[in-house]
């Protein structure tokens, strides 16, 4: 990863310019051309290091969401993970090392829809999820301090 890419990843996770030509503004601050900057971002996106450039919405403001967990027998984990993934409401879905081994985040338009998705997952898998919505947030900024050494 070159210096430009590292600087982009580290220093531009927030305060993206709201100017008509934001990439030109960033490029100028880094002393490179706009074309070079946009190519770097394309490259980082195709490598998978960058998922997107843009706003991170507070999902509670534009929908409803919850964390949920299930204790899935090891031999059924892929099947149940696939069942959960198939819902467009699922944003994140991870296997974790614990008795509760499947952890996912659902975001829906309404509480009713969220409840229905959870009910369907329970009925189709035969496993009752723990439903763990946020009660209070103490640190919600996802900007991530990268360390290169």
């Amino acid at each position, binding site marked *: 990863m070159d210096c430009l890419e590292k600087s982009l990843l580290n220093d531009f996770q927030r305060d993206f310019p709201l100017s008509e030509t934001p990439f030109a503004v960033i490029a100028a601050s880094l002393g490179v051309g706009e074309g070079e900057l946009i190519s770097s971002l394309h490259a980082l996106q195709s490598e998978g290091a960058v998922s997107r450039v843009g706003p*991170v919405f507070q999902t509670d403001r534009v929908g409803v969401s919850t964390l949920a967990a299930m204790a899935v027998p090891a031999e059924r984990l892929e099947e149940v993970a696939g069942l959960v993934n198939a819902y467009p409401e699922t944003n994140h879905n991870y296997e974790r090392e614990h008795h509760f081994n499947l952890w*996912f985040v659902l*975001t829906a338009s309404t509480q009713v829809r969220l409840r229905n998705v959870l009910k369907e997952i329970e009925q189709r898998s035969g496993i009752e999820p723990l439903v763990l919505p946020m009660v209070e947030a103490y640190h919600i900024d*996802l900007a991530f301090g990268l360390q290169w050494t």
Partner: protein
Amino acid sequence: MDLSVRELKLVAAIQGGLPLVTRPYAAIAAEIGMSESEVIDRLARWLADGTIRRMGIVVRHRELGYQANAMVVWDIPDDQVSDVGQRMGEQPAVTLCYRRPRRLPDWPFNLFCMIHGRDRDVVRGHVDALIRQCGLEGVAHEVLFSRRRFKQRGARCVNTATQRGFHAR
């Protein structure tokens, strides 16, 4: 928060990211029949009121070599959880920190934080430091390392196909 139909269209058009072009806001605006300045103004307002947490490059940890990621869960007395959560959320190693309900008897934990590191030992070191910094010696907690990632993407709050609700694509 109640967003207007016009605003929902903007959320739908922008939630997957900006196009990497010279004038990305103009490109989004053209897609949904807004002016460039209206897009910029609405984004500025959402940033100011917290509807948008931040705006910029969204990285993927694993692809950047942060192979270890743990959710650490704690059982904190209810009358202390807000204070402990505030302190925990300020530690640089913590990327997310939330209070969530207990689900007894299966789930006694009410404070959740997320820690990323290049490997598991680094993450364990961060957990030990948290215990010292937040005075959590003797507090019941568990460290849930992630194994497989089945899905990861930004939340899709609005259904782009219908524009009628928040349903995801």
